[in-house]
């Protein structure tokens, strides 16, 4: 990048401010304590940062969601607690803490109480491999993406534990839906990531981001034909993975009350809620990492780029929630297996094709391939497509 040296220095300093702060603390510590304590302290600092970040993000995501949906629906959203309702999440937290904790009489008490704890742990663990900025990945695993896919899919188990342990029929229905939905959407999600791995030739989230640099740090994967399709598929699967509308069948409030968390109250319910929002954040973060260039971007500090991209994606998720009704369970499964899965396979093919031909012809070929396959898939899924109807106006 062509920037005056002073500006670049400032940008560099702001960019690495968090990294430098941690280094400074460790430096300070190294004078007074032995080396192994410094290593331990480094882990603790990163861990504490994530443990604080996770819940705070969750709390303010709930506020953001309520505000945005309020505006979509022509109302204000929360505006009573603090200015612009900024203290609303804290008030909600106090309410959750002081609520009575109810355990149903016939529930399997151990599993019932364990489920909310188990669901939060993977949600927090995923934060480890999210690259928040340049040199701001908590653990730079070289199999980061694999770790992410593996850990995030554990979420199915605690949800099913919760639904089974509550001994409630609505919960059971919700649990069955969750298991089916999460496992199905894992497949197209994983396959949509494959082209990214092929192109960046690495599973490390950091390396994937670095492979998207280039002129103005804007050589993002979304600007390629396979990247745009892969991104859309990945994002739709991500929405389904964190049970958000229009794929929120496990907790469909109009059908099965609240699905798997029908019987939960107080803080246990809040933990489920927290896990859902943290999953939404990490999935959007990973989507930004894989396809939108992660923290890459011109001029602004890296972590601002990353958070900006992630929040744009989260806003789209909220926008979905404000617009769409939800699918039915068989249509949901059909959408994953009969529509997204073939499309991901074609996408992998296109990615390979694009790698070997020039960019312009790549765009043309892939456009042709995608339109044909889209048309064929729509045709094959005929029973679910909107019908044309005639409405006579009798006298």
């Amino acid at each position: 990048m062509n920037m005056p040296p002073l500006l670049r220095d400032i940008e560099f300093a702001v960019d690495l401010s968090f990294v430098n702060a941690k280094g400074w603390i460790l430096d300070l510590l190294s004078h007074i304590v032995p080396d192994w304590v410094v290593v331990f302290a480094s882990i603790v600092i990163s861990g504490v940062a994530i443990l604080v970040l996770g819940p705070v993000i969750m709390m303010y995501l709930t506020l953001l969601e309520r505000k945005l949906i309020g505006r979509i629906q022509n109302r204000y959203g929360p505006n009573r607690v603090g200015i612009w309702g900024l203290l609303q999440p804290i008030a909600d937290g106090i309410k959750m803490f002081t609520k009575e904790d109810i355990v149903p009489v016939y529930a399997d008490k151990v599993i019932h109480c364990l489920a909310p704890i188990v669901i939060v742990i993977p949600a927090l663990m995923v934060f480890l491999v999210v690259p928040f900025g340049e040199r701001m990945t908590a653990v730079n695993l070289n199999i980061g993406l694999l770790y992410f896919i593996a850990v995030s899919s554990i979420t199915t188990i605690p949800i099913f534990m919760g639904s089974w342990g509550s001994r409630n029929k609505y919960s059971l229905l919700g649990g069955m839906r969750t298991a089916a939905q999460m496992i199905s959407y894992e497949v197209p999600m994983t396959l949509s990531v494959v082209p990214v791995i092929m192109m960046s030739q690495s599973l490390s989230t950091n390396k994937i981001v670095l492979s998207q640099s280039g002129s103005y740090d804007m050589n993002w994967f979304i600007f390629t034909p396979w990247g745009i399709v892969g991104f859309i598929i990945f994002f739709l699967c991500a929405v389904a993975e964190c049970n958000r509308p229009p794929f929120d069948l496990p907790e469909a409030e109009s059908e099965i009350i609240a699905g798997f968390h029908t019987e939960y109250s107080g803080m246990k319910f809040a933990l489920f809620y927290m896990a859902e929002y943290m999953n939404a954040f990490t999935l959007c973060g990973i989507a930004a990492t894989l396809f939108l260039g992660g923290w890459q971007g011109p001029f602004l500090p890296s972590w601002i780029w990353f958070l900006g991209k992630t929040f744009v994606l989260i806003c789209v998720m909220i926008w979905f929630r404000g617009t769409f009704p939800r699918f039915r369970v068989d249509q949901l499964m059909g959408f994953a297996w009969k529509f997204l899965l073939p499309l991901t396979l074609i996408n992998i093919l296109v990615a390979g094709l694009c790698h070997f031909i020039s960019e312009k012809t790549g765009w043309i070929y892939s456009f042709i391939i995608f339109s044909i396959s889209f048309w064929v898939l729509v045709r094959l899924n005929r029973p679910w497509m909107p019908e044309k109807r005639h409405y006579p106006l009798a006298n």
Partner: protein
Amino acid sequence: MTQVENRHPSETLEINFGPQHPSTHGVFRMQMLLDGEKICSLKPVLGYLHRNHEQIAENITYAASMAYTDRLDYLNAMTNNFAYAIAVEKLAGIEVPERAEYIRVIMAELARLVNHITVIGFLLNDMGAFFTPLLYAFREREKILDIFEEVSGSRMMCNYFRFGGVKRDLTTENLTAIMQIVRRFPAFLEEFEALLTKNEILCMRCQNVGILPANLAVNSSITGPVLRASGVNYDIRKVDGYSIYKRFDFRIPLGEKGDVYDRYFVRILEMRESLKILYQALNKIPQGEFLNKKTLPFLKMPRNFKPAVGEAYGRIESPKGELGFYLVSDGTPQPWRYHVRAPSLINLTVLEDICIGQKVADAIIILGSIDIVLGETDR
């Protein structure tokens, strides 16, 4: 009851939807037997909101019952008043002045708009849209309720109709305000349709779900938009031509298949027809009496209102279907028999037939599309 083919025999799950359930539209209960997500049997259980409406009406004066009819179908008190007023006027042979007839038609059609937008909003809520269509619908509904409040004194429990007219005259400001609503409503409907009609998820959820064949609909005496969505051309506004509906030019939209989508779209089209009626009525409304002067003494002394011995059945096309009041007089101030033919209750009778074999989520939207109000169903 239709037999469901059971290819993979498995244990069934009996589940009670309601009476406390977010989307049974009140205290309605469905006893379902589920095989996985498929419904094997469904038994509606009614009566949680039974309030002795008919018995109460048989023990109070004719005029006092008017306030109780508001509480039947609490979404459109105006049409309930209308049906009851027509029944009593038939029984006692009361003439209604011209202007009052126009006011009545205007109010009934406004009530139809209110009901249909609310129902579509709630249908979408049942489908899982997070309140957005419902709140857009409420935004428009509020404007109409403001009119109701100005003319009748109450937003929902209007108690506006009187035997031989209405309680209060419409002022010029009221008429202008109604005209403004009528002018702005098509734009809102366009927006509403852009949000919903062609939405693929809505089409997937609604099309070919809960198909009600025309012969079943006729055999179980279904009325209203549900019947017309099945393609049967039957609208009491045209068949009876009660009040002054014969003077207006409007058409009856009919559905093709009788599924949830048709019920949704027929309601949208009916709103457009209502707007047409409103526009014509507002332009033609004459000056004159808003209440038959002969009935004034009965207004001041309801106990003196004693219709001659006889019986009468008055019916109208309420937004939910044929709403009828059957009255038998024995010459006393109280009716000897008072019966309500509630469209919500009778339309509900096909619920089991059209739900079996569908998924749980479908049962909810089928119930939503039939459009019941428990106040009217249980009475």
